[in-house]
């Protein structure tokens, strides 16, 4: 569904993405992991067209995303740090997003909006929100349009344990509907029951992209964190 072909991107001297090629299919739930500054967010932003790669192509479905925008109606994106206009209230932001994407045939999915009880504080201004509440707004906006691809950049960072579990349950539910889900996270333990594939990046390079079951068999571990620790030590030795 998403194909990345030889994508490179540098910010000045820093090579954020170095000739990355991979492909993701429908029904997969992919964990995008790697140390800080390994290019995960840049990769995600390239898929969304927020960052323009220096070279290489990204195909969504069969179309190149360069100079194209319609494909974004099929993506729900939750940013790492959600930044919203300070003066708008939660209700206004949600209303505006729905207004902008109104002509889409896809149905509206307000489940998360209600689970997080955002409807009870929709009069609050974005400026006054805590980091966690902001994350909740980001999450409910990502799921709002029932998009077939979900891209979640550190979804649970800053969420309290209850909200974190609620979000995980929602991700699991969407996964069962056969959506493509891309998650980055540093907390590997919470990805355990979600992911089917692992992409590991380091210094802008793709180190591995494999099925989780293969990896488990290869390393003889059952927990993702153990699997990764095993692989990384094998890599460095």
């Amino acid at each position, binding site marked *: 569904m998403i194909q990345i072909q030889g994508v490179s991107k540098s*910010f000045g001297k820093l090579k954020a993405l170095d000739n990355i090629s991979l492909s993701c299919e429908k029904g997969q739930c992919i964990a995008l992991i790697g140390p800080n500054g390994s290019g995960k967010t840049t990769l995600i*932003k390239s898929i*969304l*067209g*927020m*960052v*323009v790669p220096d070279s290489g192509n990204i195909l969504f479905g069969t179309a190149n995303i360069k100079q194209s*925008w*319609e*494909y*974004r*109606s099929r*993506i729900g*994106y939750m*940013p790492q740090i959600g*930044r*919203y*206009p*300070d*003066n708008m209230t939660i209700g206004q932001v949600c209303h*505006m*997003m729905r*207004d*902008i*994407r109104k002509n*889409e045939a896809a149905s509206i999915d307000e489940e998360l909006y209600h689970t997080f009880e955002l409807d009870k504080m929709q009069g609050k201004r974005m400026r006054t929100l805590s980091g966690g509440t902001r994350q909740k707004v980001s999450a409910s906006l990502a799921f709002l349009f029932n998009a077939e691809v979900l891209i979640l950049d550190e979804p649970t960072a800053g969420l309290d344990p209850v909200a974190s579990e609620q979000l995980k349950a929602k991700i699991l539910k969407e996964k069962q509907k056969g959506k493509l889900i891309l998650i980055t996270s540093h907390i590997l333990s919470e990805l355990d029951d979600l992911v089917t594939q692992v992409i590991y990046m380091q210094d802008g390079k793709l180190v591995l992209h494999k099925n989780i079951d293969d990896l488990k068999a290869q390393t003889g571990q059952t927990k993702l964190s153990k699997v990764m620790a095993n692989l990384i030590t094998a890599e460095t030795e």
Partner: protein
Amino acid sequence: MNKIIKYVTIDILRNKIVLFYTLFLLIISFSIFSFDDNSAKGLLSLMNVILLIVPLVSIIFSTIYIYNCSEFIELLVCQPLRRKYIWLSLFTGLSLSLCLAFLLGCGIILLINEPSTTGLLLLLTGCLLSVIFVAIAMLATVGTRDKAKGIGKAILLWLYFGIIFDGLVLFLLFQFSEYPLEKPMMVISALNPIDLSRINVLLRLDVSALMGYTGAVFKDFFGTGFGFIISIAALLLWVALPLWRSTAKFNRNDL
């Protein structure tokens, strides 16, 4: 696209600065016309104020607004919208609200005291200047991530167009005073939208008789219908070129 224009315009009109700007223009135009019993003289004074204040407010307000909008832009860019539309909607929203503020602030009193074509021309000039300096501000901000640097750029640009450019022209005139400079001056004046607007309005006032030979040459050209169209076209070019450049840059920007 219309939806974004709507959100931007509402957001700006709710901003108190625009309200102050309107009130300020209202007070200035009211006091100028009530001090002077000769409305042509009032028009001249008002013109000088407009040529200074309108570009300044337009460029500074737009620059700061675009920076404050960065979250909004980020939010919109990952939605199914053309980047070009987002940028042009911001431009349209800013232009619309600043023109509206100008027309409310100066328009009513100006048209009551001086309901002539010159008065209308001054209003058109003010609107064009607002739009031009929104476009210039957007060009100044698009490649600059640092807010302080961007605002500094905007202030320098205003200083250049409002003050430094005239100094340079004067310097040139004195250096080459032995040569006939009337024709080149017309081309040079097109390089500054503020100067161009000033000439356009001045030539329709009686004071233009005091401008000597250069004034006569200017009147020969800008005073005609053809010259007027050329000068308006030049002003429109001052909108189109910066806007086109900044849109192209925004399209390639990393956010």
